[in-house]
């Protein structure tokens, strides 16, 4: 088996005295979709925010344990570098309101002061928008503001913005929870197409969504990783009783 792109070992996270992740260990396989599901407050969002070190922006946040990105400890690299290698898409679409569609896609380079010549820029923008399935809809209006797009289009713009940085992993934090069913579908289809380019770690509270789009599923409950395995197996023959109860809707 290929070495995992992300290896989480014995990872704990705290907000003040409150422990939100308890000894989580999991390996994320390259170019696969891994879903993290569980009831509200189980720590799934905290887990992925620890992966790109966003959670330490909260005052009093602490972590222990290891996270290895391609065998390099994420917590020994500068968070700025980590976040360029691990992209993130949030619950609510958040394109930069002052920028055009074009500038939004290239913003990761522009805001970081990375110089690109025009043709490089254009090819990155086109490639990223094509990968995120937005190119045909916006290719004639690249210089309009990103905020004029619909919610689903804005979310795909945010995915394009993350893809443009050519990250190893993209973290998706309930990317469809603010979207209507049609736009959600579109995003789900997109995610299954994207796994050829990038490893995807998606948080969802929607079990059906996890079943539809992921190759591997992690089930979390009260800060613990209860079960992790291939999606088909976890959904059909779960090993842990709590997983089964969650899937059958007995709690959560």
């Amino acid at each position: 088996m290929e070495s995992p792109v992300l290896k989480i070992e014995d990872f704990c996270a705290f907000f003040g005295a409150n422990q939100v992740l308890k000894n989580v260990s999991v390996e994320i396989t390259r170019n696969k979709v891994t879903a993290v599901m569980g009831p509200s407050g189980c720590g799934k969002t905290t887990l992925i925010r620890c992966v790109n070190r966003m959670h330490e922006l909260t005052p009093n946040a602490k972590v222990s344990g290891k996270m290895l990105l391609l065998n390099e400890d994420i917590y020994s690299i500068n968070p700025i570098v980590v976040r360029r290698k691990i992209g993130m898409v949030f619950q609510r679409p958040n394109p930069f309101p002052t920028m055009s569609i074009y500038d939004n896609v290239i913003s990761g380079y522009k805001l970081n002061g990375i110089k690109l010549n025009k043709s490089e820029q254009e090819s990155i923008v086109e490639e990223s928008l094509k990968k995120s399935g937005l190119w045909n809809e916006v290719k004639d209006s690249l210089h309009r503001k990103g905020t004029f797009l619909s919610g689903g289009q804005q979310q795909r713009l945010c995915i394009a913005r993350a893809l443009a940085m050519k990250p190893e992993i993209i973290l998706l934090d309930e990317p469809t929870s603010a979207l209507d069913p049609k736009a959600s579908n579109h995003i789900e289809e997109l995610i299954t197409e994207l796994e050829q380019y990038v490893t995807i770690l998606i948080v969802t509270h929607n079990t059906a969504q996890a079943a539809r789009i992921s190759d591997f599923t992690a089930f979390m409950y009260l800060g613990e990783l209860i079960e992790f395995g291939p999606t088909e197996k976890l959904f059909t023959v779960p090993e842990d009783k709590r997983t089964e109860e969650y899937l059958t809707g007995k709690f959560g």
Partner: protein
Amino acid sequence: MNKDGVTFRLAKDRIFKGLVILFSFLSGIPLIIILYYITSKGISSINWDFIINLPKPVGEIGGGISNAIIGTLILVLVSCILAVPLGISAGIYLSETRKGKIAYVVRLCVEGLQGIPSIVIGIIAYAWVVVPMKTPSAISGSVALAIMMLPVIVRSTEETLKLMPNSLREASLALGVPYFRTILKVILPAGLSGIVTGILLSVARIAGETAPLLFTAFGGNFMNANIFKPMSSLPLLIFNYATSPYSELISFAWGASFVLAVLVLSLNIIAKLVAKKWKVQF
């Protein structure tokens, strides 16, 4: 009985509404009266010569107020150069640091500064700048005006940036953009309309100030662009001419009042337009 109660309440309702509308109108009336007065008294002295010429020595007919107009513009410009970077920086700091002792003290000082009478600020600028330089100067006037601008700029920057959604900051940070670049290139541009509006309003506030300039910029009858020398300004000129015994100078003061009022009102209108036009949609 019941029905009468309702009628009575409806009547009270109408009286209340009537009073509110009446008082709203009353609060608008002073401005209209002032504008009418200034226009009717000042418009007669307004012409091109009045705008572009220097004052003539007392006793001669004619002349203009060009030195005061230029002086006001220079004073305001220098004040902006002094106050805007300071004010915006403090505003950024306060919006980023909601809690904490230093932020608390800074906020308190800024609020306090807003309440200091302008004449006191003038005396402070006199002691700080005029006394060491041994001469009244435009720069000392600008220091006084800049101190008056500061609280307005700090507060408007802070309030504007506080309204920026956290998702905007996260979007930038998640791309690996360092904190200072996130503030300068994402948060500030998104709040530009509010910040620029605050600056324009603070300029409108100080453009008409006389008291801080009395012993700092001092005034003068000559054209001067050297900020280390005394400089005239519209409010100073109005103050000096209006208190003079010559009717010609008094009508000049009305004309200058008209110019000043137009200047300040247009700044207010521009501020409103900027706030509307540059507002960022999320």
